[in-house]
Every structure is written in C-alpha cells, then in structure tokens.
C-alpha cells in the first residue's frame, strides 16, 4: 500500500501530464502497470519509482505516464461506429465536401493504431466511390512506444483476431514470422504523431471527423470540458465527433450536440453562450 503522500504525488503527476485521474479505488492499476516499469529500471518498488521521479527524472516520469495511459485497442472496436462511419458520416462528407474533395480524420489517443487502420480499410473498401478524393487520417498518442507499434503496423495473432473480419485480414495483411503486418498501401494512408490532448491542438490543423473514443472517461469533469472545447475549435461547423459508448457531451460541453438517431456521434454547435467563441468562427 502506498503512503498517501506518495499516492498524491503520483496522482498529481499523472493528472498534469496526461489528464488521467487516478482515484484510490484504482490504486491496483498502479501496481500492475508500474511494476514492469520498475523492473526495467532496476527499481524494486513503486516507492523507489516515486523517489526517483521526485528527483526530477524526466525520462522515468514519461515512461510512467505512458505505462498508465496505454489502453487496449481493437480493430473495428464496437463495430457500430465503423458501420455508422461507412453508412452515415462518409456519405455526409462526400456531399458536404464535393467541391473540395478532401477530408481530414483524426484518431485521437490512437494507441497502437487499430482505429486509424480500421478507417483506412473502410476507405479502401469504398475506393470505387472515392476516386479523385483525398483522405488524410492522423493518429496521435502520447505514448512513443504505441506510436512505434502503430507505424510498424505489426500485430500479434491475438490482436488481428479481435474485431478484424477474416476477409480483411487476408486482403490487407501479410504474415511476418508469428505476427501480421498491415499492407504498405494502408500504412501510407495514415500518419502517426506524438501529441498530448491537453496541449494546444491548433498545430494539428482542422479535422472534419474526430474519433476521441474512450479517452474522456479517464479525465475529470473540467478536463473533459476543456478537451471538448479545444477539439471543437479545430473542427468546421459541419464536423463530426465520435465518443465512446460510455461517454457523452451532455452536461459537459455545449460545443457539441448528439447527432439525431446516431448513438455516439456528435455534431459541432456554435450556439454556446458566454465563452467568447464567435459564431461560425471556424467556417471556411
């Protein structure tokens, strides 16, 4: 059991660096996620990790943050959002962007890249309809390790069997030793970048579609509001936001409203009051 001052130090560090809120009931996560980190640094306990970080070991603090925020990721996770993307969001974009023929998609907190690649596969499958269009998919995460994995597009046999239909495995992956690697054509459709959601998002440019699923659940209320607010600022008026099944904007942000009849999808609103965002401010 960690001493309260050690727990508080760690909780504060994680909150500041990643927005992750660790409450005492989640303390078991510290043990399971950080003991492997301790071992690779020749440290014996969480207390030793904390002592090292108190001495301002930046690399270790980074590694610890990454270890705590790394999350499971599946291809076509939850299925439905991807069906909605193909059947609702994509047709909407094709209609609204007919003049410009370009769409930018952001997979926020992309972990090892499965969400971004799932979207790339959908686009590839629809390529007959998309001739002349330019789609850009950007995946960001704070974990360097996850991003390396995402860029390599190399997945274990277990990972390719969770959510990925066998036809798509055969079509878009090649076996490499005991792993499976995603096709270079698909890899070239996705860019992966290191990025912290709590930082200024402007450098990323504007996104028509944002996937920010199962990320907000780790944040406290003010952080959720802040992140949603800054996401809304890098989206056009007709932009579309995806949140996870257990997440909502209701009571958290007036920058988005649920898309009618499409669970998990939210539309940008510019009707919020009092926070100084000009109406139609991000319009082009």
């Amino acid at each position, binding site marked *: 059991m960690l001493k309260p001052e050690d727990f508080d130090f760690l909780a504060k560090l994680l909150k500041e660096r990643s927005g992750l809120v660790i409450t005492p009931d989640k303390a078991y996560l510290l043990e399971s996620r950080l003991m492997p980190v301790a071992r690779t640094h020749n440290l014996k306990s969480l207390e030793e990790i904390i002592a090292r970080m108190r001495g301002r070991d930046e690399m270790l603090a980074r590694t610890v943050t990454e270890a705590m925020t790394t999350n499971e990721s*599946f291809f076509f996770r939850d*299925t439905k959002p991807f069906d909605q993307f193909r059947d609702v969001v994509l047709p909407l974009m094709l209609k609204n962007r007919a003049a410009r023929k370009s769409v930018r998609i952001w997979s926020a907190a992309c972990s090892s890249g499965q969400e971004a690649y799932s979207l790339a596969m959908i686009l590839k499958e629809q390529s007959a309809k998309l001739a002349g269009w330019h789609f850009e998919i950007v995946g960001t995460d704070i974990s360097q390790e996850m991003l390396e994995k995402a860029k390599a597009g190399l997945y274990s046999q*277990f990972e390719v*069997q969770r*959510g990925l*239909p*066998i036809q798509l495995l*055969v079509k878009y992956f090649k*076996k490499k030793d005991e792993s499976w690697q995603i096709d270079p054509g698909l890899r070239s459709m996705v860019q992966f970048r290191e990025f912290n959601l709590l930082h200024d998002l402007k450098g990323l440019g504007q996104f028509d579609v944002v996937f920010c699923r199962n990320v907000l659940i780790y944040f406290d209320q003010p952080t959720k509001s802040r992140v949603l607010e800054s996401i809304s600022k890098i989206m056009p008026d007709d932009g579309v936001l995806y949140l996870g099944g257990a997440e909502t904007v209701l009571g958290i942000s007036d920058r988005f409203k649920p898309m009618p009849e499409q669970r998990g999808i939210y539309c940008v609103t510019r009707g919020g009051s009092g926070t100084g965002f000009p109406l139609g401010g991000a319009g082009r």
Partner: protein
Amino acid sequence: MKSCLIVDDSKVIRMVAKKILHELSFQTAEAEDGRQALDACAASMPDAVLLDWNMPVMSGIDFLRELRKLPGGAHPVVVFCTTENDIEHIQEAITAGANEYIMKPFDSEILQAKFSQVGLI
C-alpha cells in the same frame, strides 16, 4: 436458441469450446471428425459449425466442401478453428465457403468476437 456443432478430434478443445458456447447461450453437439460431422448435419442442420482442420477420417476442409453440397448445407455459418495460420490455408477455407476463421490458440473473447462478426450473436 441457436445450435452449434463443434467438430474437433481433441476432446479438450471440444470441452473448452462447449463451455464458451454454452455461456453464449448456444445449444451444442459434438463430432470427432468430418465424417461424423457430415452425418450429424444430414440428420439435423445446425446454425453454426466450429470446425477444426486436421482430423482423422475426414478433414475439416473436405467436410466443408461436402456440407455446402447438401440440401440446406448453405445455412450453417462455418467458423474454422485451427492451428493452420498461414494465408494459403485461410484463403482455401474462404474459397470453400467458410464464413470466419479462428487461429488457435483462441480464447472466449476471440470466439465471441468472431461469432458476433458473422451475426450469430
């Protein structure tokens, strides 16, 4: 309640699969090779078949080809479940009419994910 025929020459695998499928509310029957499975299907067509590849008497792939020729043989959703994990085997299975493909080792999460992809759950 949907029915699933578990076809594997390993008793242990059949037991594991049976346990998972019961948790997913399937009614199960078992066969130890392709021939037994074919007889079972001729007697009563299941909704799903969980199918090993390498078995004595008749292999999974031979069973599948015969199954698809039977009256009503297009109905069952066939999910291979085998240690064969190269593209060629997977390709051959799909061509022969398999709906999904699980590479062993598998766990309940994978089985559930695959069954839900093909609309069984």
